[in-house]
């Protein structure tokens, strides 16, 4: 039996899906409404899953008193009420699809001390979700 702990966080941000290597028409065809030039936004939900031994003295995989401020600092404060394309360095040269946002958030959280980051799952809307589990090299605990 494997035990994991998951916690959900929220941020609101705007983005635009556009690949500068493709022409305007190709971008419109590929990304549809998401290519709208001024951008649009979502209320993102970030579900963070950690695994690891349940510490017997606390009954916890991770103390939320440590996890919450870590995620706030590494993700929520960085992404909330921002335009992802311009204000997050990672997305100056990468299309901020939620696949790529999930990967970037995994990268930012993978060094959380004391538990292993197993998965980042992002709900872009209540109808779409994307998850990233890292790879072996990325998911080794720090």
């Amino acid at each position, binding site marked *: 039996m494997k035990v994991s702990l998951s*916690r959900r966080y929220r941020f609101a941000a705007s983005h635009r899906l556009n690949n500068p290597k493709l022409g305007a028409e190709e971008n419109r065809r590929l990304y549809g409404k998401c290519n709208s030039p001024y951008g649009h936004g979502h209320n993102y939900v970030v579900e963070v*899953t950690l695994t690891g031994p349940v510490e*017997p*003295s606390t*009954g916890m995989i991770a103390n939320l008193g440590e996890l919450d401020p870590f995620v706030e600092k590494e993700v929520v404060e960085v992404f909330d009420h921002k335009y992802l394309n311009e204000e997050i360095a990672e997305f100056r040269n990468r299309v901020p699809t939620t696949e790529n946002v999930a990967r970037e958030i995994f990268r930012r959280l993978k060094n959380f001390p004391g538990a292993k980051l197993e998965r980042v799952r992002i709900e872009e809307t209540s109808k779409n979700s994307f998850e990233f589990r890292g790879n072996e090299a990325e998911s080794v605990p720090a």
Partner: protein
Amino acid sequence: MKNAHMKPMIRITRKVEFSAAHFYHNPRFSAEENRRIFGKCNNPHGHGHNYVLEVTIAGEPDPETGMVLDLKELKDILQREVVDRMDHRHLNYEVPELAGKIPTCENIASVIFELLEPRITQGKLYRVRLYESADLFADCTADGIGSNGKDAPGSIK
């Protein structure tokens, strides 16, 4: 191909809710350590949650009934093993299976997994997911790793 002979497995999930009180306190820690580590959850008067439990059974549908496990039967098992034990109880004082453990989401989910596993005779208990709130949940998943069924994870040491 490995496992090519295996039929795809079906997973069925049943949800049940219960409401209970708890607080976090380790008698081996000082009062100050307890407050620092457990924060608001250390309030000795306790506090409560509406827990939501999702139980997933994996298996092959029976060719006669088309079911992995009759959901009515699963509902009765969840009522007996979980709701009757935990609903409107104080988890620190009234649930013997949690005695000596901090009643965190991780530990409650583990106890529920261990209570349910021997009761599931058709299909196999695959996962117990316990929501303490909409934004916090623990999963206990059966898999090859560490599934010797012998540990009692979470006993206070």
